[in-house]
């Protein structure tokens, strides 16, 4: 079978997603603005993800420290654990793991919610009652995901570092102040800012993919399940691709 016939569904999907994203930008800047729905979605997407993100971040910091310790001890550099964990969490692990957890929780929930609204004709009902469903459902959820993920990443980084502090204290006594001084002293502008900026892109990817999959859901309840599932898979893949691009761009800008 020719290569392009096999790849056609993928190319179609990317084309549709690109059109959907362009429509998002067109609708987002055009009035009317759905501020109250945006605030509501920020609460649903941000606040309600906090406990899951917090728990996973804490465990991540703790386990990372415990796993790293034997190697560091072998080389006699265990004093560098706070610095090393701090850089790893702030630069890479915090944003990526939080974004993946976020994709699992929010991407699937947006996909399923919009998918079920599509198959039960609620989106059509909005349209016939004079509401722009794209603006009300897609723009608000995507913006909320874009704005909330960086906030969750900052909180997740802080909680992870606290987990790491406890991990260090399982084996030795280290004061909280000293731990954080070591972490902060070894963090540069170059470590924190690009990681924070890329989390906006991760949030946007999760929001837009979840909305895209849900908005064009079909084939009844089976389609809703498929939308939720493929929203998570596609958003997770995009997070890794964006991460790869972010590293390249950051390195390029740093060299300039």
């Amino acid at each position: 079978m020719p290569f392009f016939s096999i790849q056609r569904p993928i190319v179609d999907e990317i084309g549709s997603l690109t059109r959907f994203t362009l429509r998002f930008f067109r609708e987002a800047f055009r009035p009317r603005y759905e501020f109250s729905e945006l605030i509501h979605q920020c609460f649903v997407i941000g606040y309600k993800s906090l406990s899951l993100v917090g728990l996973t971040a804490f465990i991540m910091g703790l386990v990372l420290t415990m796993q790293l310790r034997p190697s560091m001890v072998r080389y006699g550099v265990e004093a560098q654990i706070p610095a090393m964990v701090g850089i790893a969490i702030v630069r890479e692990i915090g944003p990526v793991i939080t974004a993946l957890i976020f994709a699992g929780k929010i991407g699937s929930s947006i996909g399923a919610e919009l998918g079920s609204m599509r198959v039960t004709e609620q989106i059509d009902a909005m349209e016939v009652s004079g509401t722009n469903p794209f603006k009300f459902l897609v723009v608000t959820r995507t913006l909320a995901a874009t704005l909330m993920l960086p906030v969750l990443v900052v909180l997740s980084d802080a909680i992870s570092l606290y987990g790491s502090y406890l991990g260090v204290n399982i084996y030795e006594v280290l004061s909280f102040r000293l731990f954080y001084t070591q972490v902060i002293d070894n963090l540069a502008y170059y470590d924190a800012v690009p990681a924070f900026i890329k989390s906006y892109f991760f949030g946007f990817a999760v929001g837009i993919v979840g909305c895209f999959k849900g908005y064009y859901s079909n084939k009844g309840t089976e389609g809703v399940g498929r939308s939720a599932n493929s929203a998570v898979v596609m958003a997770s893949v995009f997070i890794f691709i964006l991460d790869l691009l972010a590293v390249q761009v950051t390195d390029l800008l740093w060299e300039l």
Partner: protein
Amino acid sequence: MDTTEPVIVIKDLCKAFGSNVVLDHFNLNLYRGENLVVLGKSGSGKSVLIKCIIGLLRPDSGEIFVFGQNVPELSYAELDQMRARVGFLFQSNALYDSMTVRENLEFPLRRHWLHVEQKEVENLVAEVLESVGLAHTIDMMPAELSGGMRKRIALARTLILKPAIILYDEPTTGLDPITGMEIIDLIRDIQQQYKTSSLVISHDMKLVKRAAGRIVMLIDGKCHAQGAYSELKNSGDPKVRAFFD
């Protein structure tokens, strides 16, 4: 009220999905104040027809004039204005299940280009709930309502913008015979109370007999026959008689 003035005129409407031709040069007129039922088998294209009228589907060819405006040619803003005058009752009711009954009813008023004051919103919600006899459900969620109640609330939501035309998509499907009858009577009452023109699509012969002023039979994508219930019941055409036997 001028009952000879058409509010919807459909000319040579064609719509196909791939090789499946659903509407094939379909013609129809809906007159002011009329209760018109489009009768056809399941899958005959009835839902496609009213989705084309409201602008949810784009026809392949043909013209759909609603209050003199050709729907396929309208811009989004013009379509929005037209939709304020045309209500649509979905077969599945399409109530927003994350909102209470009150929020469902307020939704079209708060988001539409029409600007309605808060006091007026409250009055309209109370009025339409009273019309469908469900004033006590105002703070309930759709999941707490029975099938018939959901249908009534969906009808109330359709009525809240005071449309001049209401399109009903299979309004009695999925309801028990008694509740179905109540909905049919409600459709008639609403038509008299609000002086609306109604276009009902159905294959429910009880509804057709009780509510239809005129019947249009949609067979093979075309307007196969039309007339009053008694005329069509005595028709010699086997395709028409099949519905009445």
